């Protein structure tokens, strides 16, 4: 059975693209390490929304929810480790400015 989901899909797709652009722009333009993390979080939110919409449209919501749970677990671990790195960076340079990373060894 084939169904026309054009209106529903394009509505969600538009907002997913908007949120992706917000996250990407935040990562590209900012100099603050915490804001880079916030941009990454916003990108992951857009991906999560896209997975849920994909599951809703294809009728495989159980699979979509499982994938979203996997994404959330990975997201938490990434944020925890990244927050630790940000704190270490701050203690070393007394600043969150990403341009200070140029002074690192290596």
């Amino acid at each position, binding site marked *: *059975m*084939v*169904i*026309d*989901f*054009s209106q529903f899909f*394009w*509505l*969600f*797709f*538009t*907002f997913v*693209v*908007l*949120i992706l*652009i*917000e*996250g990407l*722009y935040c990562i590209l*333009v900012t100099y*603050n390490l*915490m*804001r880079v993390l*916030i941009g990454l*979080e*916003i990108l992951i*939110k857009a991906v*999560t*929304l896209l997975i*849920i*919409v994909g599951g*809703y*449209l*294809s*009728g495989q*919501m*159980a*699979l*979509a*929810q*499982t*994938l*979203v*749970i*996997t994404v*959330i*677990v*990975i997201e*938490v671990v*990434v*944020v*925890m*480790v990244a*927050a*630790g*790195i*940000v*704190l*270490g960076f701050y*203690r070393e340079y007394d600043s969150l400015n990403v341009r200070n990373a140029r002074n690192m060894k290596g």
Partner: protein
Amino acid sequence: MNIILVLLICMALAGLWAVMTSLLLRAAIALALTSAILTIIMFRLGAPLAGVFELSVCAGLISVVFISVISLTHRLPLQEYLKRRQSRISRFIFLPFILLAAVIIIFFIHKPILVTLPAMGTITEVRSVMWDVRRLDLFGQIMVLLAGVYGVLILFKGRQ
């Protein structure tokens, strides 16, 4: 459909607030708000389990981590803050225009999407999919969690 549209607009605006605001604490709160709105959308689309995870972990735990990290840093002097704020405005002023351009481009390229519904035998129980179909993902999640714990331990060991 109208409620979903309002929720999507609120989510995009909360994301925009998180990106554009000059205070980090406000950005963390806006991020938590984005997660909370995403949770409502998940509930509306019939994904309660993922919604509960999103609300408890992303809107709760990650916000706590962000606010903790922000509280461990010190405030900028007022002069420096005003200077950086001005610099931020000049860098982020283009974002709303880029978003508007993206909406216009999507409006012009959109085409009909025809979806074939799955066969009757598709598993609809989340627990069955998680424990039977995607069992390997669970091992992956455990490995990622252990790697994360190991990473945090290494980071804090280096501090001593």
